């Protein structure tokens, strides 16, 4: 098992000399292939900034990010676009499906952007749709689908290109609890059966409890790390709650 993602001494500053905000302050960690990793932290802890840096939407101030051994902080322009469409898969909180396209076309779009031969598009979409149990909504438009269906379509779009890394930003944020559970279960299946590496950002302890390992971030620094190991999800959930309480407790000290 190789290292998929390696973050080394990552720093991201906002503002100018007089008023400097360190969104990410000397953060280092790595993700192995086939891992299902969660990143937790309160609002403003820097987790979204971290995700933006990894997804190359934002540029790091200092430090390096390696994906499959390649330093993506040194990429620019065309190479970035190529990297994004071939190595990364995105799942957003608000689904971000194109409302002009139906589910099938939304998934196919990721493939056509990669220049997949037109003949292969349909079988690959069908294949991934079967996996995620969305075969019956393929002909529907986003406005005709439920939130859970939309997010599964978005997930299918993210993994249909077989990316090295799937980045999920609060994927359950806009879902009811039943849909959230179904989605997380499909993530688990994808991770287990297809070996998809998933990096999920969340502040919800229940969502996080599906991960194998969780990084806690506070004020741009690594605060704690939890590994699920052989724990049941319930046990793991309780351990997460403890750390979250600790994160909050720290705040209480200040007050």
């Amino acid at each position: 098992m190789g290292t998929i993602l390696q973050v080394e001494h990552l720093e991201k500053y906002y503002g100018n000399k007089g008023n400097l905000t360190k969104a990410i302050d000397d953060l280092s960690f790595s993700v192995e292939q086939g891992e299902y990793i969660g990143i937790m932290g309160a609002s403003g802890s820097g987790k979204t900034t971290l995700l933006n840096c990894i997804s190359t939407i934002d540029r790091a101030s200092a430090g390096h990010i390696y994906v499959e051994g390649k330093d993506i902080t040194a990429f620019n322009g065309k190479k970035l676009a190529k990297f994004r469409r071939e190595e990364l898969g995105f799942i957003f909180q608000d689904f971000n499906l194109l409302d002009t396209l139906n589910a099938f076309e939304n998934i196919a779009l990721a493939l056509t952007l990669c220049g997949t031969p037109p003949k292969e598009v349909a079988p690959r979409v069908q294949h991934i749709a079967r996996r995620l149990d969305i075969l019956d909504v393929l002909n529907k438009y986003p406005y005709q689908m439920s939130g859970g269906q939309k997010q599964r379509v978005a997930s299918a779009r993210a993994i249909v290109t077989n990316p090295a890394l799937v980045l999920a930003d609060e994927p359950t944020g806009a879902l009811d609890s039943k849909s959230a559970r179904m989605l997380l279960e499909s993530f688990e299946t994808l991770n287990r059966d297809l070996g998809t590496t998933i990096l999920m950002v969340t502040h919800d302890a229940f969502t996080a409890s599906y991960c194998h390992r969780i990084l806690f971030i506070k004020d741009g620094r690594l605060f704690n790390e939890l590994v699920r190991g052989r724990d049941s999800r319930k046990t793991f959930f309780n351990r997460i709650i403890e750390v979250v309480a600790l994160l909050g407790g720290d705040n209480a000290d200040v007050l």
Partner: protein
Amino acid sequence: MFCKLAFKNVRKSFQDYTIYFLTLTFAVCLFYVFNSVQSQKAMLEISASTETMMQMLETLIAFFSIFVAVVLGFLIVYANNFLVKRRKKELGLYQMLGMNRRSVSLLLMLETVFVGIIALAAGLILGVFASQGMSIVTASLFEVQLTRYVFIFSPAAAQKTLFCFGIIFLIVILFNFVTISRVKLIDLINGERQNEKPHLRSGAVTLLSFVLAVLCLAAAYFVALKFGLLAGPLLGIAILLGSIGTLLFFFSLSGFLTRLLRRNKRFYFKGLNMFVLQQINSRINTAFVSLTVICLMLFFTICTLSGGIGLANAMSASLKANTPFDASVSVPSTLLSYYFEEEDPSSAQTKTITQTLQDFGFDPASYGISSAEFTIYLDTGSTPIDAFLLDGAPLTSYTEELKNAIKTYEPDSPHRHFQLLKLSDYNQILALQGKAPISLEEGQYYLLGSSSTAPTLNAYLQNGGTFSVNGQTLQPANREAADTALFTSSAASSDGTIVVPDTVTNGLPAFSLVLDMQYPAGLSESETTAVNAALEAVTGNRKAPLYGSTRESTYDSAATLRVTATYIAIYLGFTFLIAGAAILAIQQLSEASDNIARYRLLRKLGAESKLIHHALFSQIAIYFLCPLGLAGFHSIFGMQLLHKILGALGTSSALPYVFATAAFVLVIYGLYFLATYFGCRSMICEKRIR
């Protein structure tokens, strides 16, 4: 604070909708320039007759200005509604923050006033300067000299511009009041999210409307081609059918294409093709009406411009050939009684035109004028022209054209008969023009025609066509109809005239009397004008049973027609063109700003900038090209019709004007297209991700 907010909002929308404000400014400018034509005479050396022409031109422009103001009014109201709709969320926010509806309405009103003042001021300033340049154009069209440079400002035109646009902006304010008072706060807040539901209409509906569209258009084209101007009420139906066909065409086009292209996996699953296609498809539900309007506007522009300018030039092209004499005086059939015994045109003539002129105080001899007087006869018993021409079998391909020409000349009479001219009279006319005389044998005739009817007539002559008149059957003496003008006139005077041996006309009634005059050689321009003035004093006298036309007056009236047709064509054409293009541009710009999120997503999914720009380009290009393409197609048929009209007036070819118009339309339209594309591009690149 209130003013400041309004002012800032205006500035913000200036950035986003530069094209709209430029169009507004340009519209004001156009309106002012054309309404200030009258005041341009300050710079020109103008004769009394030109002055009356300019007054006529001004009246016409004033009339068409109402029409133009209505079109511009629609454009401005439409564009404003579009802009307000786009700002629903912002307006909702003001209300959420505690502003009451009245204040929001007031804010919008203030903004409209700001926009109005800026556009009016800029447009008027631009217009004042443009009208200086326009004087040069006017001078060259009227063929007069620019005498001195005077800075022209027309208060009347400025007043009129302010008045018209003031009313338009008032209507805009009213519309805004209604919009604000009628919407619910929740709709304002969620305004952005209310997207059109993208759905494909059922295949049957799409196919049916597409087929119907094609049928409608085909029927319209057929009527236009087959019946031409003769269609009368049918032509109205053709226009209606064409409009309905256009509407159905745009209604079904995107659905039809999507269905077709979806099957072609190779195309559909390539790059962003799928995205672009659905992007267009998703908007077509509302866009098809405006696409139709724009298409028809473009069609109108093309026809008006090339038709108007073609008409103007058709007249002046044939002018030289139509005016071989310095002056001609004629007596139309209604006034003939004055010249004949017992007031019967078939009896003996008692008086000549020269005598009548002398009676009224104009003696041609005293001016050294050489003249030729002749009589034109008509045999109502002879074969009418149309039947005559249908007679020869090989003529069928031409008859339609000639019949149209005939109907254009005398729309009321069902048949027209050939005019007859005595050989001796004809030779007299030739001599006065300095041409060699012709001779005819007994039983022969000699046919005259103009450039527009010559092909038909020649074909008949070459088939050995005979002609019966006054109980005699005559054989043709010439194989090609001669184009010799009989008198000075703005239209070809020789059309449908037959020269016969002198005895043939015995006993036939006179149709009209004509006196051609050639002024002595070496007469200076001012002397010619003096002679003309003396002659016109007689012919203009209501008591004199005469009708006169001089070469000078013919040229003058041709110049008027040229200027009028050219100006009105440019005025209307321009208005329609910029109105159409501006509507398209505003639609596309607002669509692009609605779509910022979509393009951002594409970027996140890893689409390169080049690919996204390409998608945007094709999307806008399709929107701009569809109406233009169909309008161009319509125009091919519209032109055929126009060509028939122009052909009747004796033009050689309208083609150069069609090309010039096409180039002009393409340039303006292309500029709008480019401005829209770059505007949209900077909009979607604004919130940039690396």
